[in-house]
């Protein structure tokens, strides 16, 4: 599968809700529970690759994303959930109300954090960020690659799987415990990238931002992140921009919270559309000038880069004014 196909495939699976049952639940640390999920009626679950996550639709109406942390060859899926008292209620609910036998709906799996083939890997995990890394270690091992992991946490008791990691993998796993060793030296963790080495990091935003700041000496494309904030697109950063209609020269303002499609329609211009979520391609519109912030699942990566057409139901401008062939 090409990247574009993976992207498309993931966009398609987004829409499918799969009923699952909690087969087992185990408390891993005081604040982390691990759940194993199986398909309802033992229906097989979709296959996945290390780095993938699922959407879990909780009965209380919240929806959270969790990385799959088990072994892709297992029939069941496994996730770990950190209790976040400051969160939006999803993790609290899992801790307090999701027990063995509970039916849930999930969507996915999707992977925006896939492990590219490489001769050697450097893994950095912070706290619950260990979850997508666990299956990656197994894959790197199976592929015969060299690898090392630095696993940072605030306290030894709060670090999931710390013991089996250090026992199972000998010297390749280094634990860094803040309460014992102080704040980790990110610059040291990023020193001496070796030929062909890829860095995979998952953890709190502060850690990832530090890696971003200090990782400039790594070759372009060799550093991979996963932030475990919600993967549903964060639209809070969307801004207002202008759209110019090529045929009339009319300029329309698209507010931060509305789509180009809605604004153009409101101005009295008829437009075809169907799904309104960037998956069907009906509202495809030619771009005369300007850079597009593509958010659809129809165009391949190459087509998005060509910047010749866009799906106006979801995509936005990456510039102050887009000129569209309307």
């Amino acid at each position: 599968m090409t990247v574009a196909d993976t992207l498309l495939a993931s966009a398609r699976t987004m829409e499918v809700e799969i009923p699952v049952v909690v087969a087992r639940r185990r408390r891993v640390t005081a604040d982390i529970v691990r759940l194993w999920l199986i398909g309802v009626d033992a229906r097989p679950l979709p296959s996945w690759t290390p780095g993938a996550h699922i959407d879990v639709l909780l009965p209380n109406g919240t929806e959270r994303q969790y990385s799959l942390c088990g072994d892709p060859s297992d029939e069941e899926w496994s996730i770990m959930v950190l209790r976040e008292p400051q969160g939006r209620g999803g993790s609290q609910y899992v801790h307090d109300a999701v027990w063995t036998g509970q039916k849930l709906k999930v969507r996915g799996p999707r992977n925006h954090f896939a492990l590219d083939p490489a001769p050697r890997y450097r893994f950095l995990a912070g706290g619950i960020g260990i979850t997508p890394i666990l299956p990656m270690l197994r894959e790197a091992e199976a592929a015969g690659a060299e690898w090392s992991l630095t696993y940072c946490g605030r306290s030894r008791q709060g670090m999931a799987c710390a013991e089996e990691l250090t026992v199972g993998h000998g010297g390749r796993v280094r634990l860094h415990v803040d309460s014992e060793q102080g704040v980790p030296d990110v610059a040291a963790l990023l020193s001496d990238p070796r030929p062909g080495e890829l860095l995979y990091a998952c953890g709190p935003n502060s850690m990832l931002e530090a890696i971003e700041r200090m990782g400039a000496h790594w070759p372009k494309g060799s550093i991979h992140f996963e932030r475990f904030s919600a993967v549903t697109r964060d639209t809070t950063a969307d801004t207002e921009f202008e759209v110019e209609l090529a045929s009339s020269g009319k300029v329309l303002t698209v507010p931060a919270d509305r789509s180009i499609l809605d604004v153009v329609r409101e101005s009295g211009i008829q437009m075809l559309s169907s799904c309104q979520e960037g998956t069907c391609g009906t509202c495809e519109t030619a771009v005369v000038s300007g850079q597009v912030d593509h958010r659809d699942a129809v165009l391949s990566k190459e087509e998005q880069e060509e910047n010749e057409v866009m799906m106006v139901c979801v995509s936005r401008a990456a510039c102050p004014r887009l000129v569209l062939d309307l």
Partner: protein
Amino acid sequence: MTTTMPELDLDPFSDEVLRDPGDFHRAVLDAGPVVRVRQSEGFRLVAVGRYATVKAIIENPAMFLNSRGGGVLDLKYDESFREPGLLAENDPPAHTAIKSVMTSVIAPRNLRRMRDDFQTAADEIVDRLLDMRTFDAQIHFAEAYPLRVIPDAVMGVRQEGREHLLRYSKFLFESMGPRTPRAKRALAEMGDLEPTISWVRDSCRRENVQPGSFGALIWDAVDRGELTDAQAPNLVRSLVGAGIDTTIHSLANTLYLLITNPDQWALLREQPARGKFAFDETLRHTSTVRQIIRTPAEDTDIEGIPVTEGQKIMLLPGAANRDPDRWGETADRFDITRDAGGHMALGRGIHQCVGAPIARLEADALLSTFARRVKSVEFADTPRPMVNNFLRGFDTLPVTITPV
């Protein structure tokens, strides 16, 4: 709280309903979210017509399956008349990779390459029509255009034997419904279908698809390791089966509605670029595909009414697309300025018609060209509606046109 399922003493496959399903659709909308309908051939079908209910079912492919068959048979138990379609009779996760291959084949960049050819073909077809003045639009307008562009560019099938194309889709759409006495007669009148089925099977082979066509792009996906040798012919077959009759009848339905709604024809003539909107509104107003079939994976309920695992459910796009709760008081009016977006004629979600962009490109070229060059169009004789288990359209559509 459970409620019992309302029952309607109407057979969706009777000649009357097939000729004009309007009353049947209204009865289903009125009766409830899911309604048991009469079916003379031993099938115990239920029908869903309300827009919100159709949408909820179609957007839940994990519960309401495609793999149990797109026709009235349950493929878990019944031998179908053909190998199940990998695209339309398949569920995630297997469906997901297949659909993404098909989406990458029918991609905007590949369609853009075809735009000029589609326009040239539209000019030629309209030239011929203006020479004839009086003709059967079913043959010379609705069939002639897709047959001129689709077999080459899309399917990539051989020149020789193309007369089998229409026979194949007629057989396919008739066979997906119940074997009513009428359907049996229709199939019997078609004579020996074996040569047609073999021709389609052979046409889908790697050595027989023309380079540059979408059929060839499907085989290219085999070379990239995205499909197996066994899957490719099945997907080429889906282009052949689903990609021609559906468009033909939708084009004929559009022309019929433009003739019977002169104010809309006038609007289209004023702005011929509205061709694609006229087509989309036709799909809403007179949905070509009569039913979209789903099968529940387990015992469940539809808005509180229990349905059992394996119960064949007919979603009625034609009813959902006229549901006043979604379309308002003017639901029954044909209005090409309406925003018809969200109609159910092409399905929705993961199984939304993958060929829709091709059909829209065809309709846009043909209808816009026709509206630019034709001043008036009227019936030359009474049109004869087609009676077919799965599609709505015409057997004959005699018209007279005058040039601009």
